[in-house]
């Protein structure tokens, strides 16, 4: 948080621009915003008040502008604690290096430091009123610190320097108001000279002050604002396509293209419509992946023989750029066409055999073996969810075949899609083809799910087999390393079962999957490990959906292994928690749970004769009558209604605790009451452990 600038304090705008050779397009926004955060953080540490802080980014520059930055750091009262008395002086009473170091870091002699009594005993103590520094003397180190912390995956060196950065640094501009801050940044002395567009404005530009930066660069044909440039590109694409159809705009590609240009110019090119016989996904991939161009579709989402490319130049001969791009697109599409015509010389079956040479995982054999296991598991799942088992099995057999095709070799993102087209060409049933296509779904958070039941069965089988296998050879994901995409797979299983309302027991599925492995999986605890992993993903998923941790814990305590069933309970508890009775019943459950914790009870039936007060008789009656009702609702999976019914017990339960002393001296009275309470608690526990609900939220 920036501090407020008080009246009477002077403030100036601050600009820092790091000019580089072309930085990787995909990283630009992240780098620039991290740079911005780093500077904000540095300003906060130094207690320098300011207004807004913004970042700009182009391929050749990372820029941060701080508006109205105070020119003088306020005086600060510094309090620092050093080593403890024992650590500060040795037995001979001589100061230790730790003590001397602390004094040095405070800029004083050790003899000037006193001790202060703290919770950890007496410690060296430094206190000083420090006059604030002039802001401009602090800026370079704040910038350098921020640059050091940028998330650069592969920093590089260049020339004979030891400096490291994302790409070689060419210039640094650093202005505070109209003054250049000349302290070195990245080993370079900053100036006021920036550079415009590489070709349109190669000469230097003297930046007058931070507030004129954006306009001066615009004059030099550089749009510095990343998001603004992105929007302009989007508009240009739409405008370019407007007479023809709708451009296919993938956000990540738009971001990348924005990171590749300083002065976007949209150009429309076309290609021979003979290529349109090739599956359009392949053509679109060819345009996007290799040429970073945008495809255009008609209103029926059919590809048109045009593309839009964003160039970085107002060419003195536009046609040159268009014709050049058309040439490349033509070569790319010819490749796609070649792959396609080569691939369709064979039926998909032909490629299945080749999967024997592809390793799925070193200890788990080939992809062919995985295909065999997928087939068995998918077919069983198909039966459980009333999908067509014959179609499912066939799809499972063919599902990985397209990995061996030229098309997927060239465009890995077409896996499943190529298989779909080739299956249709081979006259496989529609649902077989669809299941092949859908079995990779969902590919990312928020992606669509399979629409066919066969696709669901196969998708589940494929993911469960992978999870079990990889956990079986002890390759669980760690940190950000998840090479087999197990987190995504687990989430996929959960989303498919829950959102598609497929009632399947995970434990049963995992057991089947384990049995299909011909090798003995080295991990003895593979079943529990995999199950716990999936449940952890479930917890994470609910958390992103705003289901509070206590609701999850209440259901998780019962460890239901059917995700759909789990979800039913979550929804029921969510609803229950909104009821006015919930709070008091949760407390009562907690109380009962505590009471029962250390008690053993041999009594089997509640004895009405042993009740003394009306409150306990009343509760016992209610428990008696509700029990059957709740069990019926529970068995029908109607958790919502069951918990709502149980909510009606709130008053009787409260009355019971108000008037009855459970731990009576008489053992038979006590046991009877304990039994009643345990019956009460068990009714709740069938669905969830309500005692775990917290009072907040």
């Amino acid at each position, binding site marked *: 948080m920036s501090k407020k600038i008080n009246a009477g304090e002077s403030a100036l705008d601050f600009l820092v621009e790091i000019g580089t*050779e*072309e*930085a*990787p*397009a*995909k990283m630009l926004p992240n780098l620039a915003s991290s740079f911005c955060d780093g500077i904000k953080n540095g300003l906060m540490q130094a207690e320098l008040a300011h207004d807004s802080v913004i970042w700009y980014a182009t*391929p050749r520059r990372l820029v941060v502008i701080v508006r109205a930055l105070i020119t003088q750091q306020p005086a600060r009262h510094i309090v620092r604690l050093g080593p403890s008395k024992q650590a500060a002086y040795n037995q001979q009473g001589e100061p230790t290096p730790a003590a001397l170091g602390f004094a040095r870091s405070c800029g004083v002699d050790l003899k000037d430091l006193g001790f202060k009594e703290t919770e950890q005993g007496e410690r060296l103590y430094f206190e000083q009123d420090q006059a604030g520094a002039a802001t401009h003397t602090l800026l370079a180190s704040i910038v350098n610190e921020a640059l050091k912390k940028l998330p650069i995956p*592969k920093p*590089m*060196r*260049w*020339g*004979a320097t030891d400096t490291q950065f994302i*790409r*070689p640094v*060419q210039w640094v501009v650093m202005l505070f108001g109209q003054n250049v801050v000349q302290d070195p940044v990245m080993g370079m002395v900053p100036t006021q000279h920036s550079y415009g567009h*590489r*070709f*349109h404005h190669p000469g230097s530009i003297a930046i007058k002050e931070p507030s004129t930066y954006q306009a001066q660069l615009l004059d030099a044909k550089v749009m510095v604002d990343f998001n603004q440039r992105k929007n302009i590109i989007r508009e240009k694409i739409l405008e370019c396509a407007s007479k023809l159809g709708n451009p296919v705009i993938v956000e990540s590609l738009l971001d990348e293209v924005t990171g*590749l*240009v300083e002065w976007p110019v949209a150009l429309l090119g076309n290609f021979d419509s003979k290529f349109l016989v090739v599956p359009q996904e392949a053509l679109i991939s060819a345009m996007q992946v290799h*040429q970073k*161009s945008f495809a255009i579709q008609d209103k029926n989402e059919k590809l048109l023989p045009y593309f839009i*490319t964003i*160039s*970085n*130049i107002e*060419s*003195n*001969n536009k046609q*040159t*750029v268009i*014709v*050049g*791009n058309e*040439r*490349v*697109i033509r*070569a790319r599409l010819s490749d796609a066409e070649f792959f396609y015509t080569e691939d369709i010389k064979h039926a998909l079956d032909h490629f299945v055999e080749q999967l024997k*040479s*592809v*390793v799925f995982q070193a200890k788990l054999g080939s992809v062919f073996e995985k295909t065999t296991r997928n087939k068995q598991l998918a077919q069983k799942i198909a039966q459980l969810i009333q999908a067509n088992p014959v179609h499912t099995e066939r799809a499972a057999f063919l599902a990985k075949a397209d990995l061996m095709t030229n098309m997927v070799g060239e465009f890995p993102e077409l896996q499943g899609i190529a298989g779909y087209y080739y299956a249709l060409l081979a006259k496989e049933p529609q649902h077989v083809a669809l299941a092949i296509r859908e079995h990779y779904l969902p590919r990312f958070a928020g992606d669509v799910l399979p629409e066919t039941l066969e696709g669901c069965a196969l998708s589940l089988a494929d993911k469960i087999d992978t999870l079990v296998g990889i956990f079986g050879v002890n390759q669980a994901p760690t940190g950000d390393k998840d090479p087999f995409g197990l987190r995504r797979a687990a989430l996929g299983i959960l989303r498919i079962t829950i959102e598609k309302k497929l009632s399947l027991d995970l434990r049963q599925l995992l057991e089947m999957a384990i049995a299909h492995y011909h090798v003995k999986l080295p991990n003895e605890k593979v079943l529990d490990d995999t199950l716990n992993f999936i449940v952890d993903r479930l917890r994470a998923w609910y958390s992103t959906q705003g289901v509070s941790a206590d609701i999850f814990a209440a259901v998780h305590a019962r460890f239901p292994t059917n995700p759909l069933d789990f979800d039913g309970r979550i929804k029921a508890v969510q609803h229950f928690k909104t009821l006015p009775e919930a709070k008091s019943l949760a407390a009562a459950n907690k109380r009962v749970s505590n009471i029962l914790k250390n008690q053993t009870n041999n009594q089997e039936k509640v004895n009405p004769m042993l009740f003394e007060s009306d409150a306990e008789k009343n509760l016992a009656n209610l428990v008696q009558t509700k029990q059957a009702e709740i069990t019926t609702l529970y068995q029908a999976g109607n958790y919502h209604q069951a918990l709502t019914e149980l909510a009606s017990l709130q008053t009787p339960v409260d009355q019971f605790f108000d008037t009855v002393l459970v731990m009576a001296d008489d053992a038979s009275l006590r046991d009877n009451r304990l039994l009643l309470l345990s019956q009460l608690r068990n009714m709740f526990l069938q669905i969830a452990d309500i005692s775990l609900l917290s009072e907040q939220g």
Partner: protein
Amino acid sequence: MTTPKTFQEMISRLHEFWSKQGCVIVQPLDLEVGAGTFHPATFLRAIGPEPWSAAFVQPCRRPTDGRYGANPNRAQHYYQYQVILKPSPNDIQEIYLNSLRALGIDPLEHDIRFVEDNWESPTLGAWGLGWEVWQNGMEITQFTYFQQVGGLECKPVTGEITYGLERIAMYLQGVESMYDVLWTEHEGRRVTYGDVFHQNEVEMSKYNFEHADIEHLKHLFSNYEKQCHELIALSLPLPAYEMALKASHTFNLLDARRAISVTERQRFILQVRKLTQAVAQSYFDAREKLGFPLLQGK
């Protein structure tokens, strides 16, 4: 600048340009290699502290890229034009752009872009960061700042610029097939790239894919490997390096013959990598022994 009309004129232009930049114009390596990077003028000279600037054409052989002369863009034999600048000068991009101007490519007409592309050669134990340079969407150059070579940190850093000659020529001459590139023209007599190389593509593709003797090649590979190690033990890095290059090309031939399984492949690559790393270290030691002669600015 006008556009060079022929393939050989294009090469002379580049020679002339880079010669003026102070580059040693060396000649191609007379061994089979997959890329200009394998030339000792690149791989070995990038090692150690000595400055070095060179430019050369290198014929490259990539047996698996053979298409029997039937593909207009792909061949098992082609040319790279390589420039090595060590340490990489601050204005290296600008110099490179001037070389394009020397080829008649005007960046105010053409859309020239530096698109991130990082390079790694597992067999050379080398990696670097840089770009592929696009001209109107077509990759015409690979531009790399070497960070590591033969497992050794590059200090100073070498800048490597590699032009795809056939591609650029096709573009400049406006032809759709590399075989239609005009190699030279004299008094109305035209010689094309196809005249010079088409038969070679057909025959070499047959050899690479169908007739190379697998058993013999496997035998050769282990021999080269063995001798490479022996030569390193004798502190003879240059002949050792030749053995490593021969081993590498032998591996490429075996690969084209599909004589190497997926798992074996990794093993072969690691073996070659071991050779080149040992050579790199041995070369560094040898130069050090000589007192890094090129450090003395003469």
